[in-house]
Each structure stands twice: as C-alpha cells, then as structure tokens.
C-alpha cells in the first residue's frame, strides 16, 4: 500500500495524563531481566530451599530429592512455571513489546531492522499453553501443602512472617493460574450457548456461572501475573536469607 506519501512519524510529544510510551516496556525489561538473573543465581548456586518448616517456591515440590539428585535441585521444578509464564497470553504482550519490539509501544514505529526480516506472527509453540496450565496446577497443589506446613512449627501451630509470605504467595499464584485465558476456554469459553444444554432454562447454569467468574478474574490476569511474580521472588528471597542467616524469622504467635 502507498505509504511513501505519509508524513514522517511524530511520536506524541507527550500524551497528556499518561506515562511516556517507553515506561512500561522499560519496567518489563528491568523487572523481567532482574527476575531471570535472580532465578539463575538461585538455580545454579543453591541446592536447597528449605529452612525448617518453610520451603521456597523455587524448590517445591522437591522432585530432585525423589530421584536422589543433589545438583541443581531447583531446575527440576522451575521449568514448569517458566513455560507456563512464557506461553501466557499476558506475558506475550510484555515480552513481544519489551524484548522483540513488535511493537515497543502502540503506534511506535518498529526498528528499521524489522523491515528486512519478514514477520511470521507469534510462536506456534505458545498454542500449547493449556498443557503448561495443568503442570502449573500440579506445582500449585504442592505450594499449598507447603503453606499448611509453614504454619506447623515443632511446638505446634504458629504464625511467622514466613508463613504469611508463603500464604500470600500461594493465594496470588492461585489467582494467576485460575484467571488464565486457556483455562477460561476450557471451563466454558469454547461453548457458544450455555442455556442450550440446559434445554433453554432461564436460570443461569453452573457452567455459565463458573465461566463468568473466571472471566471476571481474567480481566485482572496481568495484575495477578505481576503480583505473583513478585510474591514468588519475595518468598524465595525470604527463605534464602533465612538459610544464609542474614535475617531471622519473626514469630507473630
């Protein structure tokens, strides 16, 4: 199509009231980059994530221990949340914008180098997101088991800062996992008519209500995604610092 006659791109001087277009991708680069570097440090240089009754989300479930491996023990688990997040519809937006500049921001011209490379669309492998969801649910079940254990101290039930951190982390991860777009499709999104199978009854069916609830949570999928990323980071760091003896857990009661 005739583009040559079009005026050159003037990026908004400053779209008023909003942040400059580069803020969001810059945040993504810093937060993601930081998390990935931190994860590598955790996976490559540590073989345990357990401190008394607390287990770091990086090391749960302890798959490596089941098979007697004692090197890179976190690696046997972290690939699951990694592929789940990598294929997540929300994160696709973040990384295609921040890391591959497709596009860097809305109505921001893509780099000149893109002109010589044909764009083929998104990676087809991401279509397997639904399978990574099931794997993530399995890991999540173990994290909830860890939460229960985090409240059981040698002298019985108790609450420490660590117990609360692991609890909040599990809640946020549950919100993230169950607001997933692929789950939303599985739970009823692929149906066009809920009342049809209920013989046209006017009362909302259970499957409709479920799909509707998931849809409501799905609106905040991006928020769940970031919140749970940071909670995993904080939970792991907390346990790591306890193990290293840098900090001491505070028992609330």
């Amino acid at each position, binding site marked *: *199509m*005739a*583009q*040559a*006659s*079009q*005026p050159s*791109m*003037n*990026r*908004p*001087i*400053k*779209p*008023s*009231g909003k942040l400059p277009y580069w803020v969001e991708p810059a945040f993504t680069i810093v937060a993601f980059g930081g998390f990935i570097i931190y994860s590598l440090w955790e996976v490559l240089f540590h073989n345990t994530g357990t401190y008394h009754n607390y287990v770091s989300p990086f090391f749960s479930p302890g798959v490596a221990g089941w098979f007697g491996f004692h090197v890179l023990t976190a690696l046997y688990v972290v690939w699951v949340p990694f592929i789940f997040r990598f294929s997540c*519809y929300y994160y*696709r*937006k973040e990384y*295609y*914008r921040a890391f591959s500049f*497709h*596009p860097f921001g*809305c*109505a921001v*011209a*893509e780099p000149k180098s*893109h002109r010589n490379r*044909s*764009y*083929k*669309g*998104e990676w*087809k492998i991401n*279509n*397997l*997101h*639904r399978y990574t969801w099931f794997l993530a649910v399995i890991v999540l079940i173990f994290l909830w088991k860890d939460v229960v254990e985090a409240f059981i101290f040698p002298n019985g039930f108790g609450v420490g800062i660590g117990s609360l951190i692991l609890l909040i982390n599990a809640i946020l991860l549950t919100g993230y996992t169950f607001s997933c*777009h*692929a789950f*939303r*499709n599985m739970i009823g*999104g*692929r*149906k*066009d*008519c*809920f*009342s*049809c*199978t209920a013989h*046209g009854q*006017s009362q*909302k069916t259970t499957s*409709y209500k479920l799909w509707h609830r998931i849809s409501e949570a*799905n*609106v905040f*999928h991006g928020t769940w995604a970031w919140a749970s990323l940071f909670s995993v980071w904080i939970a792991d760091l907390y346990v790591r610092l306890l193990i290293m003896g840098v900090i001491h857990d505070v028992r609330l009661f």
Partner: protein
Amino acid sequence: MSEQYVLSIFRGDQNGGEEQEYQVPAIPGMVVLDAVHYVQAHDAPDLGVRWNCKAAHCGSCSAEINGMPKLMCKTRLDEYQGQVVHIQPMRTFPIVKDLVADVSWNYEVAKKIATFTPVNAAPFRMQQWDVDRVQEFHHCIECFLCQDVCHVLRDHDAKDQYFGPRFMVKMAEFEMHPVDGADRIPQLKNEGGIGMCNVTKCCTEVCPQHIHITDNAIIPLKERVADRYYDPIRNLIRRLTKKEESSSSTVPSKA
C-alpha cells in the same frame, strides 16, 4: 481572544505533503474536530476531513493526534494544553487527501467473512446472559483505529496475511453467537491469519468503544483454533471417536 491552540495539520495527498500550522481560539470543552472545522471555516476551506456524527458513533473521524490513533470528535483539546497538536491521517491506509485515508481495504475483508448463519429460522429463543458476550462486539463503530495501530498491518503491511483486529471482533461476534452454525475456525487459522497477532494489545488500547478486543475476541478465538489444530490430545480423541469438532454447541456438524 485569549487562549489559542496551535494545530499542525498534515496537508497533502498521494504525491506527498507536509504539516501546516494553524491558530485556533480556545473554547471550553472543544474537541479536535471542532478545531479542524474552525480551520476549514476560516483558513483552509479545501482542507480534507471526514466526519459525520460528531458524537463518537459513526467512526468516520479517525486520525492520528500527536501520533496516537484517536477519534477527532472524542478527543478534547484541553488534553494538549501547552503543546502543538499534530494531526495526521491514519498511516496504515493509503491517503486520499489531507486527513482522509482510504479505508476500503477493510470493506473487502468484510466481504470474505461468513455472516450470521442461524441454525434454525427466526424467531430465536435465547437467554440474555448467553448473548451478553457477543453484544460487546456490537459496540464496534468501524472506526478502524485498531486496524491502524495494529503493528501487523501498520509496520509489516501484512494485509494479505491478517484480517486485523476489527475483523477478529466481527468473526467472534458471529462465531460465538448462540444460534450461529457456520464454522469460521479454518478461515481464522488460514486466510484470516489469527496467528499473526502476537497479543500485544494496542488494538484494545486505542478502541474508542472500549471493546476488550484481545481478551474477549482474539484470545478466545485463538483458543478455539488451538482446540482444533494445536491440541494433540483433543486431536487424538477426535480421531478415536471419529467426531468432527464443532465450535458451536448448538449444531452437531457444520458446513
């Protein structure tokens, strides 16, 4: 007259052009289209601009205001206080004159899509809560701002490979309708090029009707395409049970 806005409006056609500056007196509550009309009435009677309703309903006045695709009639000028307001035509489509872009490609795409194909004759009985989902898509005013901002069309000019977000919305509108019986999944995957969209959500950001284009139309359609083409287990079950998959719960087999 006290306050003035400085508008820098693109003037030109297929052979080229450049921005020209105009001064417009500020009136409280005025929108960009008001200012453009002022310029047309006072300084440049030959200024090309398309508009119709001036109420964000007809989708005619799409343009790029300070680089962002927007409706001129819905964009208040006081958002740009203290700035020069650059107004350009949508750049994803060929230019006709000044602010008028040739959006006819979109109408050609529309013709390729199977329209509403009811499985049984009207009147239809359906529950409101079942049709709420597609009613969101009816809010589209065909302003084509989403098409304009979509990097697949805008930066890669892949109009032969992707129908664009507006038509994903249109296909979702029919495909998710409780009594529709046509099967658009193969077209979505192939000619429609839904895989070209990388879910970067700019279409949703610019939509003046606040349609959740990606979350409610494109992604659910991508999931249906995945159901059909990229899910090995569903595929196996389908083969074992020799059942044709239908994306509609109302009809057992589709054309």
